[in-house]
């Protein structure tokens, strides 16, 4: 899967969505849309959020599954919260 770029390679500003297209009927929508906050996170953090939801929000379960300790898991979540708050 191609990596979604979130920063401008030229000036490092946040990128916005300017075009969306339907793969079925080729309809193209142009405009200026902000990327959702979650998509502005790193792929690793996005994967963490996905696993968090799939594990019903249980950090304990995730810690066992990923073979790392609970506080490490909680610290990771705190870092993501901090990143989301910074982006807002």
């Amino acid at each position: 899967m191609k990596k979604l770029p979130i920063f401008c390679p030229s000036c490092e500003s946040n990128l916005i969505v300017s075009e969306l297209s339907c793969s079925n009927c080729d309809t193209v929508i142009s405009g200026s849309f902000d990327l959702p906050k979650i998509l502005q996170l790193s792929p690793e953090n996005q994967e963490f959020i996905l696993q968090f939801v799939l594990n019903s929000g249980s950090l304990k379960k995730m810690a066992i599954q990923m073979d790392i300790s609970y506080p490490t898991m909680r610290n990771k979540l705190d870092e993501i919260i901090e990143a989301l708050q910074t982006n807002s």
Partner: protein
Amino acid sequence: MKTLLLNPFKKYQENKLVIIGILATLLGSIIAYIFSARFDGVIDIHFVSSINLWQPFIDSFINISLLSLILFALGKYINKKTRFIDILNSSLLSRVPFYVVPFFNIGTTMQKINTTLLETLKTDKVPDLSNIPLSFIITLFIFSIVSILLLVWSIAILFNGYKVSTNAKGVKSTILFFVALLIAEVLSKIIMINLPY
């Protein structure tokens, strides 16, 4: 291996760590009793001429309790989500390097060196160090180096445990950690001097 030796808190679950920590404390206290060592302070160890079985156990209990309580209070101040079990595990496992030190007193080696040194230095004149056997000086030198390394290892384990438990970052939390360690050391000394056991 580096994680296991310096920062097991990052990877291992708390129930596994607490069991290992308690077993290590019990084993370490037995070793201290066998080789006449007292853990008479949070970052202290001394060899004594007579020792009771329960003394190293009470020493360990006081040291671990004080470290845990003081660092937990600091942890709560830094991050409200800090859990006592994580701090307790940091305190329990940080003691492990100390349990190696008593082995230096096999055959009361360190006690003999201590006694000889004290006898030599107990004079009003300039002490005559030529009376001290070279083997004693070499042993003392090796003991000092190894002890310092073990102390650094112990503090590194405690600091890493504190950082993982509290998600502490920055210079302020590092300074507060060392202040807490010093407070624990002073309090442990006061308690041990005043508690008859």
